[in-house]
């Protein structure tokens, strides 16, 4: 894994408005390397909107987000620090598991050998299915492909929207180990989930959008 620098993501006074409804306002937080931020809130409280704002896909109605002190608006390389998994996980259904990951890693500019990619596929438990079209996999298995992509991309900031959907309990435990390792290696994590994630309490921050 590449060594990473210590980074800080700060959000100041964020407000999000969709149509004429205000989803949330007055949201502040700060996440540093090695920390995880769990975004909580009821359905429709703006969790996904917040994550998309943090990715730079949407703009907040008010407030500012900064990465290492620079606003993410003008920050050219900020988006290149992010691995994002949304509701749609960015997996091409007409490619096989292996092809998906090979293309994904080329797009992030990394050039691992096929053996290494296969190793990651083995870790997420899809080795037998590696040459099967992703379309034919179950929902949980598709999710696993996306989570394999995360590990491949080696980005510092992981922004995950409900990553545990459709995953079985054993795999969630394994995935928690991956997350811990990511945090140990100066990674950052921003995640929404309705299932409890077990991470070391010292590294975990929480924010609730419903309040």
């Amino acid at each position, binding site marked *: 894994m590449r060594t990473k620098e210590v980074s800080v993501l700060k959000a100041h006074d964020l407000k999000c408005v969709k149509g004429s409804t205000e989803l949330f306002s007055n949201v502040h937080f700060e996440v540093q390397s090695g920390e995880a931020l769990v975004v909580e809130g009821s359905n429709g409280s703006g969790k996904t909107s917040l994550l998309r704002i943090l990715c730079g896909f949407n703009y907040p109605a008010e407030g500012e987000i900064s990465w290492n002190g620079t606003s993410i608006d003008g920050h050219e390389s900020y988006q290149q620090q992010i691995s994002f998994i949304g509701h*749609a*996980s*960015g997996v*091409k259904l*007409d*490619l096989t598991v292996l092809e998906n990951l090979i293309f994904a890693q080329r797009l*992030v*500019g990394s050039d691992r050998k096929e053996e290494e990619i296969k190793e990651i596929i083995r870790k997420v438990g899809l080795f037998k299915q590696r040459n099967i079209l992703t379309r034919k996999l179950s929902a949980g298995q598709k999710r696993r492909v996306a989570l394999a992509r995360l590990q491949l991309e080696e980005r510092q900031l992981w922004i995950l929207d409900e990553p545990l959907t459709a995953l079985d309990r054993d795999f969630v435990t394994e995935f928690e180990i991956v997350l811990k390792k990511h945090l140990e290696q100066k990674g950052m994590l921003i995640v929404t989930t309705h299932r409890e994630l077990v991470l070391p309490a010292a590294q975990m921050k929480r924010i609730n959008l419903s309040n």
Partner: protein
Amino acid sequence: MLSALLTIIRRDLLVAFRRRAELMNPILFYVIVVTLFPLGVSPDQEFLSQLAPGVVWVTALLAALISMESIFRQDFDDGSVEQLFLSQHPPTILILGKVIAHWLITGLPMLVIVPLMALLLYIPQQAIPTLFITVLIGTPILSLIGAIGVALTAGLRGGGVLLGLLVLPLYIPVLIFASGAVSAAIEGLPYSGHVAMLGAGLILALILSPLAISASLKISMS
């Protein structure tokens, strides 16, 4: 940069190849509509060869239009659009790659079939190379401009009709110069001016449309 371009072209071609059934639709549409003209209007040789440049090109515009939808539709559904903007490479390069792949899938088959259509419509032999050149230069412009429209309407329900309204007016210059060149060649007049205008259009579209597509995608994503 070049490797990113090639990667995205390869990926999109592979995906398209896996959906072969859809691949054939635009080109079949093209062939069928062109063959309807001799049946519906008149099989008269002189009349048809006069009508031919317009028929070949109007049909090409419509075929391009119905094929455009597929360029970003899936990417919006499976979340790949977001990934384009998080890539290490500039989104404009990746988008250009997507358009090139789309042209290889839809424009290239047209290039192959067009001389055959020309024979069907009694376009004189001396004009067939000109027709070929206009299709070679013109269809990439259609893909580049069409992609802007698709990027803008992809987030909308029922964006299909809107796409036609947005894009067809922008296709008009291509239609005028391309069919103009073919008509001129049929009459034995010089046509290099028309082709030069098409070429200029292609260069302009190549430079500007990836920027416009990228901005449109951002709007549709938010």
